[in-house]
């Protein structure tokens, strides 16, 4: 009657080799560690290089002055910092709301319908389009017909890159909100828009803000789309008139231009700009993730 008695008539079981199992385990674990270590090492190397070469460029002039004329000493990237901020901000106020409402349509209204499925497919394709195509698109749309480069056309190009990123992220986050919450709001007699904005979006707000910030950061460091649109400039942006009407200074294109110069102090200025971008992107990423870790209650 013992439960452990071997079943009658069956051959005894042959145990697998413990040694082999351990060997395979060790091999796979250590390759995973090695791959991770190489990745982290390369990343660390990049940050280290940029930091050691760029930090020397950081002084008051770097943040307050125009780039030097010719090979004059001194100077800074203040106009580029402002230009990049304005171009990115312009992209955000177009791209984020469109992406947000697109995501609301997809997750709350369109769902599995034909229109929504089509939009999702297009979004996925645009997501994979190289960013330089976005630049050419804005070039054809805004620069060619008006015969001049502009910061605004750069914002449009960046918004075009930002839109699918925001749509996809926001839809994923809204889909995490349990249906029971939607039903509860509607069961209280709330109209559909009120249930969506007041309860569903509110429940997902942490994730949505994180997604939005990361979408902005994602495009802030783009260079290719700016080649056709903002170009670059050695002068101050010149207010909204400059933003809409002419080449607009920006960090990434200027970094490229300066790095091609034969003078070491100009090259160092480029490293300083690179460092600024890395610090800003890294900083915003870390702060956002720390602030909005919550919001995953379900």
């Amino acid at each position, binding site marked *: 009657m013992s439960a452990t008695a071997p079943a009658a008539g069956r051959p005894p079981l042959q145990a697998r080799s413990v040694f082999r199992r351990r060997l395979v385990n060790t091999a796979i674990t250590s390759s995973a560690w090695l791959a991770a270590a190489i990745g982290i090492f390369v990343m660390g190397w990049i940050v280290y290089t940029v930091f050691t070469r760029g930090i020397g460029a950081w002084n008051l002039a770097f943040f307050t002055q125009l780039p030097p004329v010719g090979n004059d000493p001194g100077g800074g990237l203040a106009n580029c910092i402002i230009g990049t901020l304005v171009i990115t901000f312009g992209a955000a106020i177009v791209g984020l709301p469109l992406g947000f409402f697109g995501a609301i349509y997809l997750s709350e209204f369109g769902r599995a*319908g034909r229109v929504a499925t089509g939009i999702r497919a297009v979004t996925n394709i645009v997501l994979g389009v190289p960013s330089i195509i976005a630049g050419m698109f804005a070039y054809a749309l805004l620069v060619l017909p008006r015969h001049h480069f502009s910061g605004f056309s750069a914002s449009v190009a960046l918004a075009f890159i930002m839109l699918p990123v925001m749509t996809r992220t926001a839809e994923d986050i809204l889909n995490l909100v*349990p249906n029971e919450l939607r039903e509860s709001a509607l069961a209280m007699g709330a109209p559909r828009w009120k249930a969506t904005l*007041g309860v569903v979006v509110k429940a997902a707000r942490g994730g949505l803000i994180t997604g939005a910030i990361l979408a902005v950061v994602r495009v802030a460091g783009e260079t290719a789309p700016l080649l056709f649109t903002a170009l670059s400039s050695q002068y101050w942006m010149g207010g909204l008139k400059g933003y809409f009407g002419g080449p607009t200074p920006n960090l990434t294109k200027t970094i490229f231009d300066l790095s091609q110069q034969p003078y070491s102090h100009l090259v160092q200025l480029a490293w300083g700009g690179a460092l600024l971008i890395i610090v800003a992107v890294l900083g915003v990423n870390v702060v956002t993730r720390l602030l909005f870790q919550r919001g995953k209650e379900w």
Partner: protein
Amino acid sequence: MVDIMDRIDPGADNAVESERPLPPRLEVTPTGHDSATEFDALPSKLSVRDLDFFYGKQQALFDNHLEVKEHRVTAIIGPSGCGKSTHLRCYNRIYELYRDQKATGEVMLDGRNILASGTDLLSLRRRVGMIFQKPSPFPMTVFDNIAYGLRMHFKLSRSELSERVEDALKRGALWEEVKDKLKEPGLALSGGQQQRLCIARAIAAEPELILMDEPCSAIDPVGTAKIEELVSELKSSYTIALVTHNMQQAARVSDYTAFFFEGRIIEFGATSQIFENPAQKQTEDYITGRFG
């Protein structure tokens, strides 16, 4: 007096664990509202006639007929997947959130067919509150949770609003526990408290009928006891339809019970009759745990 608990197999909810020890015996007083003559005399808050329900092409309810009597608790019992939730979700048309779901037939609320196309869903849902299986506080403070329906449906001054929030929390048997936490998020409460918050939130909008879909299945025993007590109190002011897979619960709190099986209502009657003297063999098999 016959103890109707004697007839209920405690293992019936969970047939796999048929040999677990018996729980302590429950004291149950039959509610006393259940004679056949009383049933006929009582007004119906809601009458269901010829109700069919479809998930796409798949039919889930077949020709349901049911009377939900005013100021009584009507329990809906039956095995998992028999259509209890589907049936209840017709009472406030919440299923319409999903495009492929459809109900046909009549659900008469105070004599008006709510399935008719002219029905205003927002005022229907103000009159018919609903509590779901999983507590679902809104992502806002305890106060704002309760005020949600009030602000939406009524014009109230600030002081009237706080008065009504307090009143709803008291009627939801939650006031003592949360009166110092009104500004804290609803999600910070315990599971049982969250469910009573949802009940208070529904009550605040002054509903006439309250639907509860297995409101205790995600709640611990102490929380469950509180909610059951609350249900018994609430029926003096409201009409309640309660879905439960817990037959002791149905026996404890309800006046009338409908037994569902495979989308059909097999038997409907006074709770004591259903549990003591079921007319149908299937009902008897289910409540005594001899199912399947």
